[in-house]
């Protein structure tokens, strides 16, 4: 798998992970379930489940809906892979860093 494809796969994995972690926390805090999330966004549990476990494609609007149902703001970051040591940070043009995705890349913050 090339790096470009892997970046996409990791993004999908990150979104699924962050959504499910948020739901687990909200379940602990206020017993939020996928059924209740569905009620909040006028969808059934099956729809929510398929989006949360990554079974089917998800639009940004659906992602925002799930964040709304979780009552969490969406935060998106693209952190640099290289440490910034000053103002003259140079990007390797042979391997553009603009699509870097790490653990903090797409997060639904508390």
């Amino acid at each position, binding site marked *: *798998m090339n*790096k470009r*494809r*892997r970046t996409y*796969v*990791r993004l*999908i*994995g990150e979104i699924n*992970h962050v959504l*499910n*972690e948020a739901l*687990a926390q909200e379940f602990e805090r206020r017993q939020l379930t996928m059924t209740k999330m569905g009620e909040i966004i006028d969808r059934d549990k099956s729809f929510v489940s398929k989006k949360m*476990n*990554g*079974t*089917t*494609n*998800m639009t940004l609007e659906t992602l925002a809906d799930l964040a709304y149902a979780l009552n969490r703001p969406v935060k998106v970051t693209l952190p640099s*892979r290289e440490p910034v040591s000053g103002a003259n940070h140079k990007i390797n043009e042979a391997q553009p860093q603009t699509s*870097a*995705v*790490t*653990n903090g890349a797409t997060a639904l913050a508390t």
Partner: protein
Amino acid sequence: MATLEHLVASGKLRKHEPELDDGEMPEGIICLSPECDAWLSNHLIGTPRFSGRKLTAYDQVDQILYDFVIGRPMAYSVHYRKLEPVGSHVWELKTVDVRLFGWFCKKGHFVVVCGSLKNKLRKNKNYAPFIAKVIAFRKALDLDEPKAITGTNHNDIF
């Protein structure tokens, strides 16, 4: 008898080492049997993406193995499951479209022996050949005893 590391060095297993980003540290170890390695590289990688899916079957495997290695939380029955009979200590790692069969040799150490597309399993409704394959591979492997974790709880294996 040999440790997992010796078996990897001798080529009887291949350690799966996904590329990690800055700040990520491996917390789990995945080893693949030669059969599974070949199945992933020669068969699964060419399987087209199923309708409506975000990821191909191969992508899904790549992601769950990565999740395992970096120590992401895994949920019983969603991401992994112990198979019947539980005394055989055979487990499956699960993605939406793929099942990977193997066993936990230590906490956080999983050996994948073989795999299948989920839709093929559904047609046959038969896990027995895969379970038998894991047991036979484990038995033939010159791994230090005890070869398998026998516990069933999350804390036994992660």
